[in-house]
Structures are given as structure tokens and as C-alpha cells.
């Protein structure tokens, strides 16, 4: 990649900087700014490729992106350095919040405020599916697969792991790329 690969220490500190900069949100925009524009560790194209891989593979996207950056330069050790860098401060803060929560959540005032916050957070959870729905809107097979997955989980109460292990291979079979490429439309 770059002329000289960043050291473990630099990888850790770089991701620490990303985590601190992104306190108001926009983690992937900040990592692009710091990794590509400020520190010149990789080209923008390489960064975008990283995002694609991070989204494709299991695991939280932003952490996968950190793993990708670290692994590219320093293998497993680099991945540990970048993951630790991006998680250290947010995780300690979250544990502190959790500590406060478990000490005080039984106070009526705290519980009442949380009741409201929880309703808003549930709305955020509800929006996740709708956010990506448009990508599949013109694909009846995709909508059918999504619908049976939803029914299996929500109505038949089948657990996630068997659902993924059964429907995943079926879906992969249906979407296996054919040798002759017809004009199959949108990606």
C-alpha cells in the first residue's frame, strides 16, 4: 500500500483519534478523513473497497472497517491495534454509563426519563429495515425472501441461527451468478 506501513502504535493512535473525533456521530466519515486525507495511509479507492468488505462480512461495520485497515498493514496484530483504538474510549464510557445505570435505575425519576428515551430508541430500531427497503423494492424474489425471514422469526418464533442457516443457502442459490449475464438490472 503506502511507502511505509504505519506501526502498531500509529494504527492504535489513528483509530483513537477517529473515535474521539466521531463523538457527535459520523464514524465512517471521520475515519475516511483521518485515514485517507490526514495520514495518507491509503488511497480513497482502497478505503471504499474496505467499506465494501466491512459491510459484506459479519460484524459491526465500523469495527470491521477498523479491522480491515489494521489487517492490511500489520495482519492480525494490526487489526487488534486498530480495534482497540476505536473501541477503548467509547467502551469505557459505555461501561461507566452502565455502572451508573445499574446503580440508579430503580429511582423513579430515572426510570421515568428512561421510559421516554426507550420509546425514541425503539423508533430508531424500527427505521432500520425501512432504510434499506428501497434497494429491494423492484426485486420480488428479495421481497419474498425478506417476508419469509420475517415470518419465521416474528410469527413462527424460530431462532436466528437456524433461520440464517436454512434461508441463507437458499437465497445464495437463487442469486448465484449465471454464466450468461442477462440484463439483470440493478445491483
Amino acid at each position, binding site marked *: 500500500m503506502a511507502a511505509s506501513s504505519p506501526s502498531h502504535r500509529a494504527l492504535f493512535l489513528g483509530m483513537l483519534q477517529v473515535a474521539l473525533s466521531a463523538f*457527535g*456521530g459520523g464514524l465512517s466519515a471521520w475515519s475516511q478523513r483521518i485515514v485517507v486525507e490526514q495520514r495518507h495511509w491509503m488511497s480513497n479507492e482502497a478505503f471504499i473497497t474496505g467499506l465494501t*468488505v*466491512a459491510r459484506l462480512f*459479519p*460484524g*459491526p*461495520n465500523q*469495527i*470491521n472497517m477498523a*479491522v*480491515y485497515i489494521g*489487517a492490511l498493514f500489520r*495482519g492480525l496484530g494490526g*487489526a487488534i491495534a486498530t*480495534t482497540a483504538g476505536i473501541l477503548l*474510549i467509547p*467502551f469505557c*464510557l*459505555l*461501561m461507566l454509563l*452502565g*455502572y451508573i*445505570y*445499574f446503580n440508579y435505575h430503580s429511582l423513579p425519576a430515572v426510570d*421515568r*426519563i*428512561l*421510559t*421516554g*428515551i*426507550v*420509546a*425514541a*430508541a*425503539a*423508533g*430508531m*430500531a*424500527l*427505521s*432500520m429495515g425501512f*432504510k*434499506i*427497503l428501497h434497494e*429491494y423494492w423492484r426485486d420480488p*424474489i428479495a421481497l419474498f*425472501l*425478506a417476508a*419469509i*425471514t*420475517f415470518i419465521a422469526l*416474528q410469527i413462527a418464533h424460530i431462532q*436466528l441461527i437456524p*433461520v*440464517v442457516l436454512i*434461508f*441463507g443457502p437458499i437465497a*445464495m442459490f437463487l442469486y*448465484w451468478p449465471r454464466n450468461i449475464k442477462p440484463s439483470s438490472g440493478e445491483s
Partner: protein
Amino acid sequence: MTGFDTWIQVVVTFLRLSLFSLGGGNTLLQEYHHLSVDTFSWITNSQFADLYALAEAAPGPSSMIVGLLGLGAGWPHGVWWGLFTGLSAEVAVLLPSTLLMVFAAISWSKLKDSPLRIAFERGLGPITLGILFSVGVTVMRVADQHWLAYLVSVLVCFLMLFTKISPLYFMVFAGILGAFGVIQR
């Protein structure tokens, strides 16, 4: 159950789930709820909703809710067990997916054009869509006990989709409604 037994239970649970976190990790929320509330009784239903909201409100990746679930599981055995179990839970859920991701990063140029990769990407998208809808419904059922709470959730969902307002404002506003007893559980 000793603190150590709980710790083993937590670590095994999250190690096992790691590779099933499709589409960025939130697909596991329903499973987290099922395991931590129904199966193992680490926390109560409303505590799960609270911890989800905390993880969403705090800066950093929202998938860190796993650390809070571990903290809740270990909490009855003392603060240090709680914190240790929380850290272990987070490491456990990240470890398998991190190892796979390291492999992916190094061998991407070979994987890129393989039909398996294309089928995986295209095929698992719709499955992820179905899971995310199911997760949304489950979180809402766990969180909301009152018709006004449902109304707030649906409104926030709508605003998330059609405006660019930071969700933190919705949380603050809904928190105020809760403080005044408008939303109850």
C-alpha cells in the same frame, strides 16, 4: 450460579453468535433479547430496553450493547464481575468476526470475483432486510407498554426516514416527555 458460571455462559453465548451478525450487527438484537431475558434471565425485559437505549445514545458503535448485557449478567455477582463480564462479552462477540475480517482483508483480491462472494452479497441482503424488520418489531414490543409510547416510536421512525435530524434530539425530547409522566410503562 457463581460469577464464573455466568461468565462462561456469557462468553460462549456471544462467541457463538458473532458470525451471524449480518448487515452491521443490529440483526442480532432480537437474539440478544431472547437469550439475555428469556433463556438466561440475566436482566429483565425493561432493563433490556433501557440498555438498548443507552447503547444507542452513547457515542461509538451501537453494537456495544453486548458489553452492557455482559455487565448486567455479571452485576449480581459484584461490580468487578460485572465489568469483567461486560468486557469479556464484547471481546467474545468481536473475536470470530474479527478473525474472519482479517482473512477477508488479506485475501480480498482473490475473493472479489468469486461467484460465492457475489451470491453471498446478493442473497444475504434480502435475509438481512427481513431480520431487521423483525428486530424493529421486537424492540418496539419490548420497549413500549403504552399506546403513547408506540406513537412516539412510530413518529421517531418516520422522522429518521424523512429528515436528517440527529436522533439524539428525539431521545432528549422523549426523555422529557417521560420525566413528566406523559409516556409510562
